[in-house]
């Protein structure tokens, strides 16, 4: 191992270009191959959008980056560290520098808003209470919810839940934030707020942001870099403008939202003849 | 504040557990805090130990003075060898006292009653009762009575 256990010195050479690097990652769950050789890189200090149709394992991708899952083969490097081979302690230390915004927000339902945001600070630091209070209120102010500090998660709307969760994931001033479907199920106003927040946070805190989404316009509007995953592979990668001009029919279908095309409308199924042909004599009707 | 209240309630809960254990120890099992050094050991041999069991009481004139530690078979005499611990405070049991197995009530449990003798010397640690009287066996008594041997 090239790092020492005290702190994480960035491994030389990896430093400047990309913060996260996936190299030929293969991952299977049960009998289903979810990733079949995915390679992509996330540039440092930028907002990267990973897009793809539902069910292509975008959340799985985030879990691979966060070390909650291990790939069957291939490499996952975050900030120069090979995530699957990290020992537990080092993995947990690496995660302290990551924030992740879950689709559901995943707030702790038995703690109020203030305590939710304070949670990572209380666990990972030994700051005195008044300092924790200042930090929490600062983070809540950043997401515009300083006034909601005493509410319980059950009392929050979906958009507010996600903003509290965002405040919680930036509580420790991470270098990297992973957003899992930040826009899904949000009304236009909440979505606008989140787009603005993600953009602002990235600019002001010098973060590297990865967002996984199937909302094309919103994602492309804030991303510096985007890639499209489909059928376990990366089918297109580049800046939003490059993607918009992409010639691949799969990329075009996804970006334009065409119902049928190279990405099939039908889930893989046995031949129609096999399902209906024999018993109903449907073959002739289909004629 | 809420945390403080919870702490106090949990503290009371644990205390209640301790108090319950104490109650079970003192009131239910009648445990008294005597250290092991406060007793001395004496032995007695019986032809029939009956239902005598370890922890049965040993008493004099109905007052508990000790308890039985072990009931085992003596391999040479084929008698029951009973080991009992007598409270050290009771240090003047005459050496010629006899140990009698009695039953508390008709169906109650059996215990040893020490019937004091007249000897000037007292039983000491490791001594043996010379005179013992075995358990009253009701079956045997009835059969004796029925065959006429019991009623002269």
């Amino acid at each position, binding site marked *: 191992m090239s790092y020492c256990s005290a702190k994480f010195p960035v491994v030389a050479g990896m430093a400047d270009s990309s913060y996260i690097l996936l190299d030929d990652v293969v991952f299977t769950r049960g009998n289903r191959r979810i990733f079949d050789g995915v390679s992509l890189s996330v540039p440092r200090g930028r907002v990267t959008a990973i897009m793809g149709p539902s069910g292509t394992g975008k959340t799985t991708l985030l879990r691979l980056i966060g070390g909650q899952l291990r790939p069957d083969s291939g490499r996952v490097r975050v900030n120069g560290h090979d995530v699957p081979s990290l020992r537990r302690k080092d993995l947990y230390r*690496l*995660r*302290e520098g990551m924030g992740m915004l*879950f689709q559901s927000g*995943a707030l702790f*339902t038995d703690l109020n808003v203030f305590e939710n945001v304070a949670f990572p600070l209380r*666990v990972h630091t030994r700051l005195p209470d008044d300092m924790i209070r200042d930090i929490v209120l600062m983070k809540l102010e950043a997401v515009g919810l300083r006034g909601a500090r005493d509410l319980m998660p059950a009392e929050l709307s979906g958009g507010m839940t996600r903003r509290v969760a965002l405040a919680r994931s930036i509580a420790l001033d991470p270098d990297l934030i992973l957003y899992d479907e930040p826009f899904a199920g949000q009304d236009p106003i909440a979505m606008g707020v989140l787009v603005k927040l993600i953009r602002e946070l990235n600019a002001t805190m010098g973060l590297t942001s990865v967002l996984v989404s199937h909302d094309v316009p919103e994602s492309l509007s804030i991303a510096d870099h985007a890639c499209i995953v489909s059928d376990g592979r990366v089918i297109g990668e580049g800046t939003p403008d490059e993607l918009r001009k992409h010639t691949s029919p799969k990329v075009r279908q996804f970006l334009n939202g065409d119902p049928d095309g190279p990405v099939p409308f039908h889930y893989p199924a046995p031949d129609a003849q096999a399902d209906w042909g024999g018993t109903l004599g449907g073959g002739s009707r289909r004629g | 504040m809420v945390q403080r209240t919870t*702490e106090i309630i*949990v503290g009371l809960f644990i205390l209640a557990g301790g108090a*319950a254990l104490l109650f079970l120890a003192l009131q239910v099992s009648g445990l008294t805090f005597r250290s092991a050094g406060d007793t001395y050991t004496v032995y007695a041999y019986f032809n029939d130990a009956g239902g005598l069991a370890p922890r049965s009481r040993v008493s004099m004139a109905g007052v508990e003075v000790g308890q039985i530690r072990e009931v085992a078979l003596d391999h040479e005499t084929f008698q029951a060898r009973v080991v009992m611990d007598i409270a050290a405070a009771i240090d003047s049991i005459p050496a010629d006292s006899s140990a009698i197995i009695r039953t508390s009530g008709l169906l109650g449990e059996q215990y040893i009653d020490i019937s004091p003798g007249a000897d000037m010397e007292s039983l000491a640690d490791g001594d043996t009762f010379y005179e013992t009287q075995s358990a009253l066996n009701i079956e045997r008594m009835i059969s004796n009575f029925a065959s006429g041997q019991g009623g002269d």
Partner: protein
Amino acid sequence: MASSLMDGIARLGRRGLDIIASLGRAGVFLWGALVGAPRPSVGGPLLIQQIYRIGVLSLAIVIVSGLFIGMVLALQGYTILSDFGSESAIGQMIALTLLRELGPVVTALLFAGRAGSALTAEIGLMKATEQLSSMEMMGVDPLRRVMAPRLWAGFISMPVLALIFSVVGVWGGMLVGVEWLGVFEGSYWGNMQASVTFADDVLNGLVKSLVFGVACTWIAVYQGYDCVPTSAGISAATTRTVVFSSLMVLGLDFVLTAVMFGSF
């Protein structure tokens, strides 16, 4: 014919391996949760909070059940013992039954239904709402942060509850036996004290409830942690908690009784 037989055997083998694997997972889980507890300043309040929720909140049901069981024992015992003219042995009967068997066993069954199912459902829901995942991603091990305090709280609460159950039962028995049926109070306690021994009866009962506490809490917390994070999965896990805990308590009770009181 032969192939279907082979299939059956293979299926049986797979099931056996599944069971062994899940036992292994449960063992690793317990190890991961109990080794390396959080800092006392963090873990202490968490533990206290869980003892409150698992132990203190189960107190009501335990006290009420203990009272009724003690009173029923007195009534039943009195009817049987009075046939032999030895009603005075009622205290001994109640105390021994409660201390050796009913205290630990009934408390454990109540615990599985009251606290165990709640634990499973709570943890299952935390899993379903990604709270455990998000904790992991924050660099906090949910095994230590969420599971460990609950496990320890269960281990501590069960013996305390069982002790309280026995005391309340003995008291309830006295209520019926002495106050109502007219057994002489002196012989109620006297017979009890003559036959109950601290080391054999009280401590063995305590050991039983400790073992049951570990079994019930382990099952409940693990079932929650291992459940399929859907509403159907959580409900199935909750059912499994109650069923497995009850069977485990009764089975362990037989084994422990044979070891402790069996005359070998």
